């Protein structure tokens, strides 16, 4: 299918690469305790990039019939006529590592079986005065990538997501708690237990509202709450940020920038995760890449274009991601955030990873409002809490409202107070809870 398109553009004398993706999804949604809808979606599309006279052009389409491929190539050529000159080199064919992305049990699952999972989760979460919504989505996606230098790749992924949210309104107090399971395979009984326990634990701890603490305090960021801390670091480790001169980590490769126990690895070959794949969307074989190890900056991630633009001989690290429309860009696969001497994940996950025990006065941050707003790149953040809990004398004593946390991610990650035993995947990021010291907590 895609090789025909590559042949077509090659015959016009262009270099090119292309991605074809087809995704079939089946989803069911339970609203307020009852199954309301079942849906299927079948979508396919092609993204084409050509190099014509040394200039790069892009075009995308969801009209994938043979007749439309000519017009796709025409549009890509017209785009290249305006494009800037760039010495883009497409990779040759190379072996891809084995990666497990496909599970028969997911591909073959029946609507009834999905409904049974939904009913079970629904039933276990049902509470008086609480609205429960559950959605389950199954996806089977085929990806094909090829270029005129001979690289080809094709793989099929399955995906299954069970998401549940719970809303409790009492007067003008609105509490929302949600969590989800996602993976390439079916959730095990343990996965569903963990999902239910995660939501119910956070609901029960939230029923009591306590006044927020104030001052520079120890704060436990749950895997979910960590997003505000990790976002600037994820941005800074992108080769594009380096190229644009906005990465605070630029020029620090090989230097200690974080706590000596802190590490981040991008791992596309881990088994059965949403970001797992044998080859990236530009035909570069997948490999795990340490980004931060022992607190030292090891690598930045690159796609083909950013590598070609970087003036220091950078190579693509296999982090090209592309949709049907628009041009390929840098994207992480699965990010694994670790702390060297952190405890192994416990049999059953404890909320906040057991880190509250050693804290006399502090906070657990599970969700913040406005993450990503404002100047992310410098590492400074300041957010009202969406869901946070007070720690007093080693115990989580209740939910705090009307509080805000602030700090600088780079400063806070210099000294990690501890890692929880609750390490888990949250979509395509794995991390435990982290205890960070001296976070500004203010009442408002």
């Amino acid at each position, binding site marked *: 299918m895609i090789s025909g398109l590559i042949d077509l553009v090659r015959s016009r004398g262009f270099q090119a690469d292309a991605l074809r993706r087809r995704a079939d999804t089946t989803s069911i949604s339970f609203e307020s305790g009852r199954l309301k809808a079942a849906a299927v979606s079948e979508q396919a599309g092609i993204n084409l990039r050509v190099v014509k006279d040394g200039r790069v052009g892009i075009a995308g389409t969801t009209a994938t019939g043979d007749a439309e491929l000519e017009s796709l190539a025409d*549009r890509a050529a017209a785009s290249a006529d305006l494009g800037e000159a760039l010495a883009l080199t497409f990779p040759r064919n190379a072996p891809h590592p084995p990666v497990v992305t496909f599970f028969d049990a997911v591909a073959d699952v029946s609507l009834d079986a999905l409904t049974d999972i939904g009913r079970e989760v629904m039933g276990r979460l049902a509470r008086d005065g609480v609205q429960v919504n559950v959605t389950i989505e199954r996806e089977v996606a085929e990806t094909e990538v090829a270029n005129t230098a001979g690289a080809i790749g094709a793989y099929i992924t399955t995906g299954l997501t069970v998401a549940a949210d719970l809303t409790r309104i009492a007067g003008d107090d609105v509490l929302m708690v949600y969590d989800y399971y996602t993976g390439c395979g079916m959730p095990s009984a343990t996965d569903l237990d963990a999902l239910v326990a995660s939501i119910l634990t956070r609901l029960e701890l939230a029923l009591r509202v306590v006044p927020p603490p104030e001052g520079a305090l120890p704060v436990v960021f749950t895997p979910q709450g960590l997003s505000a801390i990790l976002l600037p670091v994820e941005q800074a480790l992108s080769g594009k940020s380096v190229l*644009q001169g906005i990465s605070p980590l630029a020029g620090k490769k090989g230097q200690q920038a974080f706590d000596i126990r802190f590490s981040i690895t991008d791992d596309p070959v881990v088994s059965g995760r949403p970001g797992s794949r044998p080859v990236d969307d530009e035909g570069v074989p997948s490999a795990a890449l340490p980004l931060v190890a022992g607190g030292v900056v090891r690598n930045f991630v690159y796609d083909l274009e950013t590598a070609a633009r970087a003036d220091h001989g950078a190579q693509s690290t296999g982090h090209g991601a592309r949709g049907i429309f628009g041009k390929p860009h840098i994207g992480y696969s699965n990010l694994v955030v670790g702390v060297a001497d952190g405890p192994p994940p416990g049999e059953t996950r404890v909320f906040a990873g057991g880190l509250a025990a050693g804290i006399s006065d502090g906070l657990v941050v599970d969700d913040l409002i406005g993450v990503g707003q404002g100047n992310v790149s410098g590492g400074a953040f300041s957010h009202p809490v969406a869901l946070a809990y007070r720690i007093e004398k080693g115990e989580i004593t209740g939910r705090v409202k009307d509080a805000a946390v602030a700090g600088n991610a780079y400063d806070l990650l210099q000294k990690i107070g501890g890692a929880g035993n609750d390490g888990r995947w949250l979509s395509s990021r794995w991390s435990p809870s982290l205890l960070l010291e001296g976070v500004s907590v203010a009442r408002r």
Partner: protein
Amino acid sequence: MRDRLSDALRRSPAQYTEIRVERTWASQVSFRGPRLETATASEDQGGFVRVLNPGCGWGIAAFTSLEQLPAMVVRAHELSRAVRLDEPITLAAVPPTESDVVPDLDGDVRGVSLAEKKRLIEGYNGLMLGVSGGIVDTQAVYRDEITEYWYVNSEGVALHELRPEITLSGTATARHDGTIEKGLESIGLRRGWKSAAGHEKGFRDVAERAVQLLDAPSVAGGTYPVVLDPELAGVFIHEAFGHLSEADFVYENPQAREMMTLGRRFGRPVLTVGDNGAAAGLRGTLPFDDEGTPTQDTVLIKEGVLVGRLHSRETAARMGERPTGNARAISFRHPPIVRMTNTYIANGKGTFDDLIGDIKLGVYACGAFGGQTMLENFSFTAAYGRMIRDGKPAELVKDVVLAGNLFQTLDRIERIAGDFRWNQMGGGCGKGGQFPLPVTEGAPHVRIEEALVGGDVAA
């Protein structure tokens, strides 16, 4: 196409069937700094089928291969039959309508070359780059789109529309040592090529402001009388109140219904809020929503009292109210859900000067970098601010973040000026995985008696 759709409807075994088909031609040109990032043209097409059967739930199918339409109607029917409901889903009645709307495209963007589009946005980008005193990076994006849209349902609605859209955006980044400031321009219009010209001043202004902000102090955190400019007031009412007035938030939840009981006082008599999908010429404007319900002006808060909410046919039937034409989908990939269109705070009286005349010390918060609400809590980042001193706007300040509780803040809106304007911005609204939905917000200057302002939550 009309015949194919009628044929598919006729063959549908389901009790209720609706079909949407969309074809979209889009092009985008973007610059990063002086460099062209992309110049692309894309084509997107697909269909959406949703059916309902007695005693059953929704069956839905979305697809990109239009030849699959008849098969997808059957799939949707089977899915609906698989969802057994004790309590049936009912839809509020909507009159049958046939409508063919081909608006003045205001210069069909499909007849303009990519090269011309590139020249236009390159010009705006150049104005930002040309501002002296510290602009280190820019981003400028031109995007246009024309969607040909068909909608039919088994209750006699048949629509055909052409929907044009054009958006221009600019980000100017200024830097001096470790200080980085940004200026944002954003224009979104349901119009065509002719409306893309003439925006030079906006692009230049945001770049100049980014440079000025380098030397501006952060606002000192604290509680102040706060005046919102029309842009920020519009974003505020959309985010902080608009989402709560979407009936899918309340219709299945008795506690939420209680919180949002019609007749409840939400503000003082100066405050009137509404959503008007039929307002002429705005980005959130359409003749019908994605269930074939005509759009309308729906008053949500009248003189401080909750009087209405936004509905789909399903939420309206469930709550015994009337559909308001607010069931919208961002594309054929998604089902329609309850969304806003053009949301506004209605005009008050007097001028901006009248509004601030008796404020000894306050904050004038302008523009919006972003905002998020978690139901009753919100946080908004203004693009910039000015202190108000002795009744007059004074020095420029930055890091103006407003955070608070919705109910308290609405109740503290004490005065509203008579200088209403719609803010024709780009971007869009996100909900339920559907982003960006074209919407518009409008407001006059609004004065809040007291609000917490902080760039820094000093501990």
